């Protein structure tokens, strides 16, 4: 064991200097989600399947806006799976810490 200690003393430190040096997030990391409202057909399947009730639909059908509560979202990816028009994608943005819960709600509005 002493041998191992001394070996580690000589070795480079295993620590990554996050947040000062950031490494590239892995492909497929599910961070904050982004909805492309241009493609959304307002079918509501994402709302229906979300296990955490993190998506809310305001309005109906093709005119509906979507609201995502990041403080409820578990980043499970089911909404992207369910969406028939594949308009939900995940960014790799995971540094979402916030002092105020309100800032964790994002709205996706249709451009008129």
């Amino acid at each position, binding site marked *: *064991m*002493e041998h191992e*200690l001394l070996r*580690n*003393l000589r*070795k480079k*430190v*295993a*620590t990554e200097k996050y947040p000062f040096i950031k490494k590239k997030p892995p492909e497929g990391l599910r961070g904050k989600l982004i909805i492309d409202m241009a493609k959304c057909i307002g079918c509501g399947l994402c709302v229906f399947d979300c296990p955490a009730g993190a998506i809310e639909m305001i309005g109906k059908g093709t005119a509906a806006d979507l609201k995502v509560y990041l403080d409820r979202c578990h980043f499970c990816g089911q909404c992207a799976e369910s969406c028939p028009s594949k308009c939900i994608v995940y960014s790799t943005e995971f540094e979402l810490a916030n002092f105020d819960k309100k800032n964790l709600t994002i709205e996706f509005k249709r451009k008129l």
Partner: protein
Amino acid sequence: MVPAEIIEFLSVLIYPGFIFIFTLAFFYEWVDRKFVARLQNRYGPLYAGPGGILQPFADFIKLLAKEDITPRAADKTTFRVTPILMLALALSTLFFIPTAYTTAVSWFEGDLIFVTFLVSILVLITLIAAWSSTSTFSTVGGIRVVLQMLGFEIPMTIVMVGPAIVSKTLSITNIALWQYTTGHYFAIYQPIGLIVLIICLLAEIKKAPFDIPEAESELAAGWITEFSGRKLALIRLTTDVELILAGALVTALFLGGPTGPFGIPSVIFFLIKTTGVILVISNLRALFARFRIDQMLGGFWKYLVPLALLQIILVTLGVG
């Protein structure tokens, strides 16, 4: 000319008095934490000052500025007084061990015995402090402190006598000086004594693998569980001063104290030697799993006491 009283006063206050010791205490805590972190393949404190060197200082200031809660059930006076008393005791013990100069701030023939006595008192005050907070964790922790003392006190006292016998003095300062003048360093002549002393001191300052009284995984924080704010700051400072105490004691008794050749200021030698001792202590801390109190007691009586006695026998036979 500055009057002698003022020099005396300054020496108590600044160098080699309080300020010097406190700075040193923080420095050694940093050395300890940093070295252990490094052994564990990580950085340890990094952003408080260069390389995190101000970390212990930041901890101290933060604790001073925090709310200081006295639990309702606690014995208020004792609870309040004991941390101060402990720090005072640790500091005054240090005054009998040579640090910055080749002689201690205060010394007399027999201070070796006095120092062991002070160390025991320190332990007893810990028990009182633990008792006064009346929480069960503290109480069990406090009892463990005393049990632990039963383990380390005897072998520690015995090995400390070793150097005294050879150098024919009971003063720590003189023992250190004797080694320097004769060139007989006890680290070489009484290695068993050195090892036993370091192990005992490890138990005295309650560092792993003998951090049984503070065992985090079974007793929250042991006897210090209920202390917060300023009191906790003082307790932590005491712990750090004890770390110096351990380093200084080993240095004085076995490494010739703050002495060395070439007319370089003695404090440099002191720093080098104690840092060495502290690195050894940190290394041991990282090397072992915590012992159980019964294993610790059993081990000390089964191995360390005989070893200490063996050392003394060797010394009296003239081998040391």
